[in-house]
Structure formats: C-alpha cells, structure tokens
C-alpha cells in the first residue's frame, strides 16, 4: 500500500509525459490531479492505519526489493511510514493536490504540449518528494533528494525561452549540487562509521552513546548532512538560489519552493534527530545559521518590490525558524512549523499568483494597489495567510512560531530568542507592507505599461480567481486557520515522539514563563502589523521619508546585502578565470589536445617512413620472404 503513494504520481507523470500532448489539456490536467488525489487518499488510509497501531510501534514498513547488496553494504528499497513521515506525506499530497487543481486554471493559457509538460513535471516532483520522505535509508532518500532537485530545475526553467528563467534554473541546480556534495560525503561517512545507511539502525547504534563533547565523527557527519540541508532548504550560505527560483510559474513556487521541497532539509534533520542530538556542536551551528538566515532574509524582505520575491525571502526566513527549532532540540516544534508554514505559505504564493494572473503578469508591488475591491476572494484569503504567518493568536503560524520561540528561550538561548523575536516583528511588518501595498490605496498605473496593448486588455477586465484557483485558496485559508489547533495539549508532539525517540526532548513545564513569552511574541506580531499600517496605509510619506533618511541601509537591503555580487566576485569569477586561462587554454588545449594530436602525428610520421616498404613489386616481396626463410633456417641449422 505504501508503494502506491509515490507510484501514483509517477504513473501520472508517465501518462502525461508520453500521451499528454495528444489527450488535450482537460484530460492532462485531470490525469495529474487525479493521480495526486488518489495518492492523497492512499496516504490518508495509510496514516489512519498507522494511528490505529500502538503508539510505541507506530511504523508501517514496505520492503520492495533488495536494491544493492555488495559485501557489507546492503541497501533495501524500503519505504517506512512513521509519524514524522505521516505528517510529511499528508502535507505533500494534500497541499500538492490543491496546487495541482489551482494550476489547471493558472496555466490555462499554455498550449496543450506545454500544459502536459508542466503537469508531468509536477507529478514527477510529487513522486520524488514522497520517495524522499518515505525512504527508510539514506540511499532511497537521496534518490528522492536528487529527484526533487531535478524537478525544481525543470520547473524553475519551465519558461526556458526567457533567459532569466533558464539562468535561475541553472543557478538552483548548481547551488544545490554544492549542498548535495556535502550530503553525499555525510552519508558515506555515516556508512564508514556505522556500517549501515538505514535510519533505524543508525539511530539504534547511536542511542546508547553519550553526546560528543568536541568535534568528533558524529559531529562531522551531521555537519556534512547539514551542508546538504542548507542547499536544499535555502539557508546561509546556499540560500541564493531560492529568490531567483521565483522565475518559475507561481504554483511551482508554492508547491516546491514554499511548502514541500525546501523543507526537505528540515525533515532530514528530524529524520536523523537521534544522530543530531549526539552532536551538540552541530546543533549549535544549525541553530545559529537558522537564526542568522531568518533575520537576514527578513530584513531583505522589508524592501523588495517584487511580490514573489518578498514571499521568497519570507520563505527563507521561516525555514530559518525551522532550523532554529531543530538546533535547540525542539524537533516537534520545527516539524510543526513546517506543517503550518506549508499551509499559509502555499496560500500566500497562490494568492500572489492570483494577483499576478489578474494583472496579466504584473509582479511589481509599486504598480499594484486597491485590489481589495476587485479581487475579494484573493484579498480575504491572502489576508488570512498574512495574519497566520505574522503570528496573530488563533491562526496557524502563532502556534508553531510561539512554540519555537518558547523552546529556544527555555533551552537557554536568550540571544537566539531575541533575534527570533525581532524576526517575528519583521515578518509582521513585511507581510503587511505587502498586503497594504497590493490591496489598499490606489493603483498607480505605469506609463510604459499602459502603452503595452496586451496589458491594456488585462487591465480592462480585472477578474478575480477562477473557480479552480478560488477552491485552492479557500481550502488553504481554512487550513491556515485550523492547522494550528493540532498542537493543542501537546498532541502533535506526542504523535511525533516515536520518530525522535529515544531522544526525549527536555520537558519544560514553566507555565508562567510560557505565558509571558507568548504575550511578548503576540506583542511583536501586533506591533509589526501596526508599524506596517502606519507607514504603508496611513502615512506613506513617512515611509518615503524613512527611506530617504536611511538611504544607505536601504540600498544595502535592496541589493540583498550584495551577496550575489560577493559570490560572483569571490567564487564565480575566479572559477571562470581559472577555467578559461588555466584549464581551457593551458591544460585542455596544450596538454590534452597536444597529447591527442601528438599521438596522431607520431603515427602519421611513422607511417610515412614505413610506407616506403610497400613497393608493390611482387618479386621484392618474394625476395624478402626468401631472405627471411634463409635467415631463420640458418639460425636453427647453424651448428
């Protein structure tokens, strides 16, 4: 039964990839959505069976075949459903289905072959993502890990005629490759150290050990795995690909670059919680990197003008929160934030997609405004998503973010807590800046755009989300409100506990402290909204004055701390120069081409001499034959 979960989207991919261009757009969309819906149904059944089991033995294992068996190395193709994987497959298939449905409307302007190509990629992505979360050992996980990277590349570069989209796809792929290199090294080192790559066996081997004091083997293994996580989950220093990934279609951003793939790194740490718990040095690194990423991305999101880029940096920032939770040992809180974030961030992306769709491709916040009146469904759902991410009580984001901040403070990381709180404030500010700029005030039409005839037609009949899109938005908006209540009374944490066992998270039961901290984070959320309301709703001139006053920092933020430029100067250009002058012009042309041409010339020269022997005169051949026979006979017969 477990195998059907990734197999169904794979079948959808095969059908759409082979027949998609012939069966027409409606059928292609139906196949893709049907495959996802079926996968979701199977997932639900599987999770229901899982829940009916005893809490301590909650795991469904489905072994397909022995994949590799070579000496000590044994890798089975095994899928394993435990509470952690259960959360993930429900998120992937559930939100995936909604985004598939949404896409049928969003992509309706594409031609039939393009439409089928889009849905085949989307199905393939879901198949790989499900393989990633269900794999019971590192190798199966790695197949999914690389597969989602491939699909991410294909979908970012979906409109590959556009230079920037093709470049963004390549950037995502290459940056991920750097992380994957660390990941592979980590897996290999884990095999060397433990003699197995099965998650359960590694956890059992590690459990009796005491946590490493310094930088031992386990710390190095986990650090290398974390390098892989920084690539996949867009953390410092490998986060640069995610904002550029917004070149892809918006539903792709929602599915891959907000709800599912980018959380793979967080999931991977949760999956290996026992291993990471034994490497306190790594956990500190994870927490610090997560917090730093959250703050950095949050500040950048404040000044971006592209609606999708704001959301992209917001995603990076929220992923930082998840890593902060992982780093302080609050695995359940991190996974809980992953789960709630999947709802509201998918909702926000889909909402931004509806705005972009309505405006005929316009993504610049400065040219939006007043959309509240024209796009009521989009406005209300988007507002709910923004409230949820800002952390207003009663909405999903509040429960998870508050839990993370509380856990951080309770584990004694006061500095990380302060930065986390500041980021929560920033989150509320940039999200509501976006809401106020896009949906309130007046639209300031751009001169250049008005002369563009395609734009005019779209501007004239501004339409709200069509039914398929509205459905996805409304369901996700409901999810963004209610998803958080799953954690009431610690239910979510208890459900996940077997996955992180036997590592028990330190029990903290200081109610008074928790309430104080909750009050502080609510204040941060409401304060952020109030600040955004003052600057972007009430008094835009004040915002402009602020911008002028802090022109320097603003320019720094608008250029994203010049990180892309620094990477370009420090890494890309040196590699390019070395490649061109040393590797290409010296080694390739001189050494390698020289060797190949040299061999050719030697043979030609030798042949030039040897061909003189081939006179064609039969008598000369006969004479040499005769001479040879005489010499051989003479040699043997000579006494």
């Amino acid at each position, binding site marked *: 039964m477990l195998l059907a979960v990734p197999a169904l989207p794979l079948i959808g991919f095969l059908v759409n990839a082979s027949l998609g261009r012939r069966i027409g757009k409606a059928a292609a969309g139906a196949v893709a959505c049907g495959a996802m819906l079926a996968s979701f149904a199977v997932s639900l059944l599987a999770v229901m069976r899982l829940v009916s089991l005893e809490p301590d033995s909650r795991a469904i294992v489905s072994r397909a075949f022995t994949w590799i068996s070579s000496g000590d190395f044994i890798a089975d193709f095994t899928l394993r459903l435990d509470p952690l994987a259960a959360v993930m497959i429900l998120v992937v298939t559930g939100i995936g289905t909604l985004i598939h449905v949404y896409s049928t409307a969003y992509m309706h302007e594409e031609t039939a072959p393009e439409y089928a190509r889009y849905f085949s990629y989307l199905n393939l992505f879901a198949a790989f993502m499900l393989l990633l979360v269900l794999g019971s050992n590192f190798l199966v996980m790695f197949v999914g890990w690389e597969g989602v990277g491939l699909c991410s590349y294909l979908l970012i570069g979906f409109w590959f005629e556009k230079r920037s989209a093709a470049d963004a796809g390549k950037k995502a792929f290459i940056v991920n490759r750097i992380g994957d290199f660390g990941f592979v090294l980590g897996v290999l080192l884990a095999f060397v150290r433990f003699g197995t790559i099965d998650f359960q066996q590694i956890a059992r081997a590690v459990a009796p050990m005491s946590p490493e004091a310094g930088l031992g083997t386990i710390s190095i293994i986990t650090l290398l795995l974390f390098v892989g996580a920084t690539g996949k989950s867009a953390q410092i220093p490998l986060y640069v690909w995610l904002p550029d990934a917004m070149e892809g279609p918006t539903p792709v951003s929602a599915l891959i670059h907000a709800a599912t793939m980018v959380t793979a790194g967080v999931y991977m740490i949760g999956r290996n919680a026992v291993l990471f718990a034994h490497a306190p040095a790594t956990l500190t690194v994870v927490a610090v990197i997560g917090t730093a990423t959250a703050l950095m991305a949050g500040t950048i999101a404040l000044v971006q003008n592209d609606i999708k880029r704001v959301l992209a940096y917001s995603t990076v920032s929220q992923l930082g929160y998840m890593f902060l939770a992982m780093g302080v040992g609050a695995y359940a809180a991190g996974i809980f934030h992953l789960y709630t974030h999947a709802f509201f961030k998918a909702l926000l992306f889909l909402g931004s997609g509806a705005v972009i769709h309505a405006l005929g491709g316009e993504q610049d916040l400065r040219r939006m405004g007043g959309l509240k009146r024209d796009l009521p469904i989009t406005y209300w759902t988007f507002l709910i998503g923004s409230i949820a991410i800002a952390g207003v009580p009663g909405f999903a984001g509040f429960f998870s973010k508050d839990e993370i901040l509380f856990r951080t403070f309770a584990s004694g990381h006061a500095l990380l807590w302060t930065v986390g709180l500041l980021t929560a404030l920033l989150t509320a500010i940039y999200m509501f800046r976006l809401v106020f700029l896009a949906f309130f005030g007046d639209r300031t039409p751009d001169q250049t755009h008005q002369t563009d005839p395609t734009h005019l037609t779209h501007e004239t009949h501004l339409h709200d989300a069509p039914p398929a899109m509205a459905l996805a938005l409304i369901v996700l908006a409901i999810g963004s409100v209610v998803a958080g209540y799953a954690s009431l009374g610690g239910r979510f944490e208890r459900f996940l506990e077997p996955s992180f066992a036997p590592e028990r998270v330190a029990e903290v039961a200081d109610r008074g402290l928790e309430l104080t901290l909750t009050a502080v984070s609510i204040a941060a959320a409401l304060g952020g909204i109030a600040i955004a309301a003052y600057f972007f709703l009430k008094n835009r001139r004040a915002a402009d004055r602020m911008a002028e006053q802090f022109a320097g920092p603003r320019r720094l933020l608008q250029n994203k701390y010049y990180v892309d430029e620094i990477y370009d100067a420090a890494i890309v250009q040196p590699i390019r120069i070395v490649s061109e002058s040393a590797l290409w012009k010296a080694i390739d042309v001189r050494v390698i081409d020289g060797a190949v041409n040299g061999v050719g010339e030697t043979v030609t020269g030798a042949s030039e001499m040897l061909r003189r022997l081939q006179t*064609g005169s039969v008598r000369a051949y*006969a004479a040499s034959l*005769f001479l040879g026979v005489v010499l051989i006979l003479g040699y043997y017969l000579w006494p």
Partner: protein
Amino acid sequence: MVPLNYYLVLSAMLFAIGTAGVFVRRNLITILLSVEIMLNAVNLTFVAFGRALGSGDGQIIVFFVMTVAAAEAAVGLAIVIGLFRHRESLNPDSWTVLKW
C-alpha cells in the same frame, strides 16, 4: 649405387636455379616455370630420401606435390592470361599497384 649426397647436391642446384629464375626473369610464364623447377627439386629430395631409407612415403608425397603443381599451373596460367588482357604485358613490374 649413387650415394644420397649426389641427389641432394643436384636437388640443391636445381632449387637455386629455380629461385634465381623467380627473382631474375621478367616474364611471368618463365617465373611459373622456375617455380616448377623448385618444386621438382624438392620432389627429387623426397624420392632420394625415400630410396635411401627404404620407405615409400617419399614417393607418395611426390604424387601429392605433382597434383598440386598441376593445379597451381592451371590456376597460375589462368591468372597470367587475365593479367595480360589488362596490360598487354607479361612483366611482373607492371603490377606494382594493387588496384586499377
């Protein structure tokens, strides 16, 4: 009785004459004749040894050689005629390239 060595010396002389003919003469038919002389020199050796050792094997081999020589002459002369039709010449140096 004539001693064996006499036969062998005669055979060697015939073989040398045949070899020299193959190398020196510039007429394909003469070259074929020279090859026949070489073959017969070898035949003589076989027969001489057969008689000296009191065995019939030498004579049997000679029969085989003569048969092969006859076949060779037939094929060889046919090739010579074929070549002659191409070049109107019997000089082997006319055919130094392996194509035409």
